[in-house]
């Protein structure tokens, strides 16, 4: 594990898709030509101002960007410390940050002439976002979802179907997000000619971690601009929840070289890090290879992948984006964890104090804000990424609170 100083934390990945030792292209040979083609296509698109202009236009008029940077006044008063802002990505079309990345990838797929889009989904937010963009552009959409998750997230399954997507249950393994990803990869191997794989997080083989990060960076770029306009300076602390890590990377990346900005990623500690029932890949896992990249993973002593557990289906993944693994080793970002119980308390507090029903994913980030905000002075500026709204979670929460809907 290297901790050598670097001039910039924002130059990765290298030409092999590596962030330090993490990332890479660990895929079957069948997929290698596709990944190389995608890498080239993305490079070309990135260099083409008309691509960015088209994306910006859809982000503004279809997604509803920029999302507000909102001063959470009552929560700030309640916690009695840092001045807390929410980056309101839950106000995006489809209710989460996922659509930022999907718009980018779908426009790229169109540019590449691909007509069939496949995606994996856990909680269903990425699946809904992908189904939405495919409906908008008249593309065929197939979403793989673990059969366990299909059961837990019925409203999102119905949404995807309304939008014209086919939802295919992943019946193998643990039948959750990691298995949905396996199934999507199997589909891609079998349909290489016409299919574009729209990955929902900053993981997978190169160039996905870089590409998804770039598309999500709009969150951090806006936050920087908005905070400078509101407060005349950069924030002191950024906090975001991490499953695969795309909302967090989107917020963090534009700030990585601002050395005075403290950056904290919050993983799902589930029932607790000492139990095996958690989804904290960095705080409770170690480096390995899965789904095309080297990164921190949850696994047993023999290298077999274990299942993540979290109250939030969106954090319930046994891996994390490779750039996060690198930022952890470099100690640029601090990774902590919040339990199911802490997230649930934060969820309820946010509903009551701010009139915002957060998704269970950012409720984990909020749980950490509740721990640290009281220890900071009143002029300490803290931004939490409110990356999704909680409508999808009300059934889960009602269930835990013993309320029958």
């Amino acid at each position, binding site marked *: 594990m290297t901790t050598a100083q670097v001039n910039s934390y924002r130059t990765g990945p290298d030409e*092999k898709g590596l962030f330090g030792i993490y990332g*890479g*292209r*660990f*895929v*079957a*040979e*069948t*997929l*290698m*030509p*596709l990944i190389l083609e995608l890498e080239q296509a993305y490079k070309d698109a990135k260099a083409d101002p008309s691509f960015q202009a088209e994306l910006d236009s859809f982000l503004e008029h279809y997604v509803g960007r920029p999302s507000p940077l909102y001063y959470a006044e009552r929560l700030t008063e309640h916690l009695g410390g840092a001045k807390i802002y929410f980056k309101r990505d839950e106000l995006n079309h489809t209710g989460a940050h996922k659509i930022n990345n999907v718009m980018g990838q779908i426009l790229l797929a169109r540019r590449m002439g691909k007509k069939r889009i496949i995606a994996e989904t856990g909680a269903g937010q990425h699946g809904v976002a992908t189904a939405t963009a495919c409906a908008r552009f008249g593309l065929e959409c197939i979403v793989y979802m673990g059969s366990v998750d299909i059961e837990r997230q019925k409203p999102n399954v119905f949404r995807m179907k309304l939008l014209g997507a086919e939802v295919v249950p992943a019946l*193998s*393994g643990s039948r959750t997000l*990691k*298995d949905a990803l*396996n199934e999507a*990869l*199997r589909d891609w*191997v*079998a*349909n*290489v000619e016409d299919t574009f794989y729209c990955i929902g997080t900053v993981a997978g083989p190169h160039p996905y971690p870089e590409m998804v990060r770039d598309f999500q960076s709009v969150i951090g770029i806006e936050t920087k601009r908005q905070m400078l306009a509101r407060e005349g300076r950069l924030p002191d602390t950024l906090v975001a929840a991490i499953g695969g890590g795309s909302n967090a990377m989107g917020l963090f990346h534009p700030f990585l070289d601002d050395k005075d900005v403290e950056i904290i990623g919050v993983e799902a500690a589930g029932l607790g890090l000492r139990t095996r029932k958690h989804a904290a890949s960095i705080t409770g896992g170690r480096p*390995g*290879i*899965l*789904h*095309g990249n*080297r990164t921190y*993973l949850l*696994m047993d*002593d*023999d*290298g*077999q*992948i274990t299942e993540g557990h979290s109250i939030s289906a969106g954090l319930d993944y046994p891996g994390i984006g490779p750039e996060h693994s690198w930022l952890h080793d470099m100690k640029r970002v601090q990774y902590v964890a919040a339990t199911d119980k802490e997230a649930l308390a934060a969820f309820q507090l946010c509903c009551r104090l701010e009139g915002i029903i957060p998704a269970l994913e950012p409720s984990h980030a909020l749980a950490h804000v509740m721990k640290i905000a009281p220890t900071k002075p009143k002029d300490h500026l803290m931004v939490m990424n409110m990356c999704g709204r909680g409508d999808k979670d009300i059934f889960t929460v009602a269930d835990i609170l013993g309320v029958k809907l």
Partner: protein
Amino acid sequence: MTGRIERRFAELKQKGRAALVTFVTAGDPDYETSLKIIKGLPKAGADIIEFGMPFTDPMADGPAIQAAGLRALHAGQTMKKNLKLVREFRAGDKETPVVLMGYYNPIYVYGVDRFLRDAKSAGVDGLIVVDLPPEEDDELCLPAITADINFIRLATPTTDDQRAPTVFRNTSGFVYYVSVLGITGTKAPDLKSVEKNVNRLRKHTNLPIAVGFGVKTAAQARAIARSADGVVVGSALVSAIKDSLTKAGKPSSKTVKAVHSLVSDIARGVRS
């Protein structure tokens, strides 16, 4: 030094026939049964033996091989036991080449150097690691070559003339041509395109080419053996194991025999 794989292909070339390469998952349905299955494979007609190293997330495999891996893991299979199985097989058979096939993570976690050392001393001749394309050769391929273990690469219908030299650069032993786009054991190979692709790949390599993915019957094996140097049968054998299990998923008196008789049947196809 010529290895067992090279010797075996040379020997079969003299006999004028293709090799039958059989795949079973190590430890499926349990260690003891798996050992019995493997020990009897050469006599049933297998020329080269592939052991799958079970992994929870085999992204290039179809339902049959996925399920076999989980059966083995549930029965307690580990990397140490994979190697022990090879060692026990090798104690009774000095010539049949053994190839380990699987995914990188269990090897990475075991430790690359330790794995290569233990594999070599157990009698492993070659490795096929599905998620290590040439772009990741530094990880295991080059160390394996140094350790005198063949690193066998998969070539696929997407391996076009431009890509082929990259794929074959550090390949040794033989080339495993994946005859269909997709996962193991699902689609049947289109024989005409297999022949065309095998002949195309021969322009890029002098290594023997074995063809697999979706070969289930003696007739298919016979047809493929006409253009290829080897025929790989995997999912069909793994399915035969599954079909022979008791309702509780335990091996029955038929399990070992089911695999051996299918291998004999397909071997007749390859040899005819």
